[in-house]
């Protein structure tokens, strides 16, 4: 068993409306900052996972995402796994 550090980023699924992203983009434009486009606003989560391998850690994270952390109707996610 080893402990893996996981960084999970949950973001709006492509095509689904992202009111937060639009609002932040609007506010950035309001600052008259040129050449910046805010694309999406999402969420970040870090956690430790005990597992026998990177693959197992990934499987645990995928399962958690499916069951709890990610709403598949609206969101996608990427998980970065760092070994112990």
């Amino acid at each position, binding site marked *: 068993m080893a402990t893996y550090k996981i960084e999970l980023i949950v973001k709006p699924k492509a*095509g*689904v*409306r992202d*009111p937060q992203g*639009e*609002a932040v983009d*609007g506010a950035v434009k309001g600052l008259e900052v040129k050449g910046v486009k805010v694309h999406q606003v999402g969420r970040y989560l870090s956690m430790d996972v005990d597992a026998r391998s990177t693959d197992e850690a990934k499987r645990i994270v995928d399962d958690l995402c499916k069951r709890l952390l990610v*709403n598949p*109707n609206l969101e996608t996610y990427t998980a970065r796994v760092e070994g112990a």
Partner: protein
Amino acid sequence: MKPDLHNAGINMGLKPHELDHIEKQLGREPSLPELAVFAGMWSEHCSYKSSRSRLAMMPREAPYLLAGPGSHAGAVDVGEGWAVAFKIESHNHPSAVEPYQGAATGVGGILRDVIAQGARPCLVMDSLCFGPPHDAKSRHIAQGVVAGIAGYGNAIGLPNVGGKTVYDTRYEGNPLVNAMAAGLVRHDGMRTARAQGVGNAVVYAGASTGRDGILGAAFASVELGEDTTEKRSHVQVGDPFTGKKLMEACLSFGPELGLVACQDMGACGLTCAASEMAALGGVGIDLDLDAVPLREDGMEPFEVLVSESQERFLFVVEAAKAAEAVKHFEHYGVHAAVVGKVVAGGQFRALSQGSVVVDLPAALVADGAPKLNWPEAAALPPVAEYAEFSPPKDLGKPLLRMLSEPGIADLTNLYDHYDHTVGNRTVRGPGEADAAVMKLPGSARGFALTITGRGELCAVDPYRGALAALGEATRNLACVGAPIMAITDGINHGPPSDPVENRRLTETIRGLADGLKALGIPVTGGNVSLYNATAEGAIPPSPMVGAIGVVDDVSRVPRGELAADLALILCGTPLATPMTSAYGRIASGQLAGSNVSVDLAADKRLANLLVDAIRRGMVSFAKDAGAGGLLTALAKGCVRGRMGATISWTFEGRLDWHFFGETSGVAWVGVAPRFADAFLAMAKTCGVAAMRLGSSGGNRLSIKTGESSVLDISVDALRKAFTANERGAA
């Protein structure tokens, strides 16, 4: 029609006879985008094709009715030049799929109906039916729905002032989410959806259009090859921030800025708004789909036409003022674009990249769906009476059980998710009285709203259940001093394609119609949601009644919490016989027993008495007996007021049915002792049996019949039972 086109139409949900009708009316084959337009507009949701002719049974006229069925939201005159526009709408299926967004967009949608009427929304209420809280999936749905209603309503800044939440196994997998909104508008500020003036501009305002809610699964299979549903249609996402900006922009956009007509884009989006506005005005509308603000690349014309992206309105604007109108919306941070114009004739046309992709008579699209006459069962299956059970000797145990029953038990934790006070109009919010009371701007005058409906009763007898919903609405409003003046109805039913369910639908509507006639009030509009069923069967018929009445002086509104030293008077004549009720279900273990008790005439007499006495400032406490019966009602008053009561009463018949039965026309009234005789005299004049049975005080609820004590329990114990079960949706 060519076989592939025919199949495409069927896949979109159109029926063979509808396809034939389309071809016959047009004298040609429709194009694929045209089929999509019909599929959306002739869906049950938009066309009411299965219920329309029956809905016409309901009375829809009254001198104070300023906008009736067919308007965005019905409106009644509440005095001082103000009208209240209000309407109920369901979002059952979206909430089953995606509870948070389904409920949030339900609130957003009903608000846009009120705004389209020209009214500034001032409250939200809801009527929710979930599976039992011990079921994990039902709990997940309930939590998401409550969070969604709160998330949208709180952010846009509207108080949620009450509602009704029911838990029943028969809603497992098919929750009901009905939201009601109301708004205030000056009589001369009301808006119309009637498009007029050839040459006038059609202006789109609000969020840009994406592939949101595009007829779901049906469209995925339409000639679109490998595309999956997932890619083609997204869950609709509510955005209260854009909704708020759009609301302010719409409410400040009046005739002086060139407004001719407006309609929100809800079900079937752009198509519905444009074709209905054209049909109402007897004109045509040309839409330029290339001018519609889009959020995604590569959208097909039909997708733009039927997308149900949220937070959008369509306006008809005087041609000369169109550019200024666009600027007006942009000032509020809302996208806007001229997307078409009003034309002579009556065609609804859509152009894309220079070619006409839709060219249909607007009236055929908006109102032309052939009525569906489903077969009806000759009679409803009989419901057995409750099995015999012996009455309890002491009322304590069953009372504690009733108080902790989900649906009767306290929902404070649930309601604390909602803002109740934003807007400074809330005189009585959730749990504070039997109906919500709001005040008019700068006045002591106000209005009251309540939302009622008991699937439990309608499952047994939809006709009497519908009458009972009207009776309860009448009593609820009367308990805050408001005579019922109009309703909006939300009909939630199983599939009409099932003859028994279809018969139930007839019975429900007949019940509403007869009840409204008996009360002498109209329906102002509403919503019908059919096909509410799962593999386990249809939901119980669940008509929701949203009722309104005027309160002359909000300072005289009694409370639903008991205060000290009041004379307690029981109004009405409770029956001591078995009847369909929460008590019967719990005590017998049977979901339903026959015999729905209802007596609208008794409710009306009771209401006359209460309203009169409240206007005279005589009443401190008023609470009608609804689910759980008259003892549960009194116990709730004790808990909310942290106040005991002593009752002494002799009567015939079974103790339990007497105290927990749900007889019509029954309410508790608490008056200062000096008013008691006068109140009893008024009751006599009104033809209401009324008895002074005791008084409030102390910290125990004690009841004696004859010489024997049948209940003696601390208010604290009642409170614990009432609040222990606050799992519900919270």
